[in-house]
């Protein structure tokens, strides 16, 4: 697959506004209507049977699909360069849907060890209860991914920008490792959004997002999205959910019948149907409002973030700043290659004085909100070791590069000067407290 723009196709900014939606044929509504309906009337009995048998297009029940959700699903599939998508109740639900569609008890996952804490919990502690094990590896080492692959491995996973260390996943290299062993690569692209990086264009097979974050931008909803790139050759490996007859659907073989849409169709016909972690239509509508301005917001997020990162890097009370946009970051060159528009707006820094100094800094900030989220239009701050990643033991924290003094910020859309001033004041207070 090449990174190209087809002749006559629509540009990214236009797709952010229009993809997946036509003016409502019944009312002429320009905005996407909120179809707040649990179910949808069948025109006749044969049509009803056809919908259930995947021979008619349409909606049955909002757990399975909903017209508002469908606009969001199609829009993210368009922006990510996929064939289709499913909206889920949360980013965690999207991750679970991907895993549950591919893996069964006895299967194994190879994952980056630099992960969102919730994802780490799912892989390390919860999925083993269901017979699915994970081996965690250094996200900067594609050879480590290769070495960890076992005969029972079914999935390779990583975050495009690790959390909170901001390691840049070398998607082309890790995809090559995965594909050499006939495995799909799933990438969590939450921190980048398709504006900054389209992992499918780089070789990934599946992409998931926590839509709660930058895709929405407003911090008022919880939602997730799972996108199918449609290019993975499921027949190349042992993937019974795709390649074998599915008793739960009259022996349908998804890989045979649905071609490039095999995975996403299985995920909808089984995972959303049976696990039921669907998105509410009102949530889909609110995420769509955010997506309309995604290109504008992301450009501002990354420029503000770089400005703040440069300020912190030059401050005498800051020991280190981990932002791939800075030349001293180990992945700076890779970030310029894979994320040419910017390396996101979430990053970590370590203030001199350890945990106590970090606490003083966080409590001294006025504009930054101290909370457990990223990707809001407003700037956010948190101490990962005591909050988002507190369930990791000391060894895992060290392996993930999460020090006691690390502070994670998510840079919003405020005036950059105001953010710098807020941080400057807080650091001044840290300095005063240290000196006594």
């Amino acid at each position, binding site marked *: *697959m*090449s990174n*190209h723009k*087809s*002749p*006559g*196709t*629509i540009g990214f900014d236009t*797709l952010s506004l*229009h*993809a*997946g*939606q*036509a003016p409502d044929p019944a009312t002429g509504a320009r905005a996407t209507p909120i179809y707040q309906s649990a179910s949808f009337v069948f025109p006749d009995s044969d049509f009803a*049977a*056809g919908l259930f*048998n*995947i*021979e*008619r*297009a*349409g*909606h049955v029940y909002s757990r399975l*699909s*909903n*017209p508002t*959700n*469908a*606009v969001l*699903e*199609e*829009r993210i*599939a*368009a922006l990510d*360069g*996929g*064939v*289709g*998508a*499913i*909206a889920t109740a949360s980013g965690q639900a999207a991750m679970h849907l991907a895993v549950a569609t591919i893996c069964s008890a006895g299967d194994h996952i190879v994952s980056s060890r630099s992960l969102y804490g919730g994802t780490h919990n799912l892989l390390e502690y919860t999925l083993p209860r269901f017979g699915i094990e994970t081996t965690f590896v250094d996200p900067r080492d594609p050879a480590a991914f290769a070495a960890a692959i076992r005969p029972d491995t079914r999935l390779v996973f990583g975050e495009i920008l690790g959390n909170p260390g901001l390691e840049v996943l070398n998607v082309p290299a890790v995809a090559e490792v995965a594909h050499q062993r006939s495995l799909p690569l799933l990438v969590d692209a939450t921190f980048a959004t398709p504006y900054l990086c389209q992992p499918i264009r780089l070789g990934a097979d599946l992409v998931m997002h926590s839509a709660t974050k930058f895709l929405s931008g407003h911090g008022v909803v919880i939602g997730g999205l799972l996108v199918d*790139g*449609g*290019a993975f050759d499921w027949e190349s490996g042992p993937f019974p959910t795709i390649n074998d007859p599915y008793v739960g659907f*009259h*022996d*349908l*073989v998804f890989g*045979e*019948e*649905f*071609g*490039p*849409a095999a995975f*996403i169709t299985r995920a*909808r016909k089984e995972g959303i149907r049976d696990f039921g972690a669907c998105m509410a239509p009102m949530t889909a509508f609110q995420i769509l409002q955010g997506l309309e301005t995604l290109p504008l917001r992301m450009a501002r997020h990354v420029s503000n973030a770089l400005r703040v990162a440069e300020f912190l890097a030059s401050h005498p009370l800051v020991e280190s700043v981990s932002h791939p946009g800075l030349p001293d970051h180990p992945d700076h060159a890779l970030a310029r290659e894979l994320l040419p528009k910017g390396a996101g707006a979430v990053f970590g820094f370590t203030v001199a004085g350890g945990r106590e100094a970090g606490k003083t800094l966080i409590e001294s900030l006025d504009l930054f909100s101290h909370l457990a989220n990223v990707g809001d239009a407003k700037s956010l701050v948190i101490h990962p070791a005591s909050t988002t990643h507190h369930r990791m033991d000391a060894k895992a924290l060290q392996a993930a590069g999460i020090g006691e003094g690390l502070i994670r910020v998510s840079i919003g859309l405020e005036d950059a000067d105001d953010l710098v001033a807020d941080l400057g004041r807080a650091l001044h207070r840290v300095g005063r407290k240290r000196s006594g």
Partner: protein
Amino acid sequence: MRLEVDGKAAFAATGSASHASGRRAVVFIHGAGMDHSVWVMPARHFARTGLNVLALDLPGHGRSQGPGLDSIAAMADWVVRAMDAAHFEAAAVVGHSMGSLVAYVLAARHPDRCRALALLGASAPMPVTDALLDAARDDDHAAIDMANTWSHSPRAKLGACPNPGMWMLGGGERLLETAAPGVFHADLAACNGFDPEADAGPVRCPALVVVGEADQMTPARAGIRVSERLQDARLERLAGCGHSMLSEQPNAVLDALTAIVP
């Protein structure tokens, strides 16, 4: 369903149903660079409603062994041999785009094997631009881009797919990317070389011609002319629909097919 045709492996989807003797049959033939998966919805419908279904992968496409065939007539004769392998006598034969030419020629050359004919996105002749042919010959992705873009109506380029959550341009691109090197070009060259006067005689079975009024690849007027060449043809116009009518308006296509296939 695995078949053996000319000593080579061939594949056809059956709409998730086993064939049974005594049932009426329907054969689906895909377009250039495509495979059986474009027919998934009508195949499943007619299988559920009691027909034996054969949604074929032409040689070199999908799961059928290559090499590809280099003329529409050769493809039509191959489809008849595939019907033999599946123990089909006469069938309703449905084709889309290049597949519509194959179906058309099959109906003319093998009238005893075609009890009804449905042509979707048809044009006879079916000229292909040099730019597309050249890019396909060079296995340049630009060929896929051109075909995929021109195959969707202006409306469909922005989506609003009737199938929830599916991005039509992405699906079309991925499917064309699965074609083995050389196959897409051979298909396009076969379409370009098709001569309706020399390659297709009269067709007497009942026929349906479905045209998309926003079809840039095979404009509606070309499909209308095809319907006028057939002795017993009904024309179905799909308003606002492009060439990729099976993804853009699957319900309307199925409604049209239910009038002639069973």
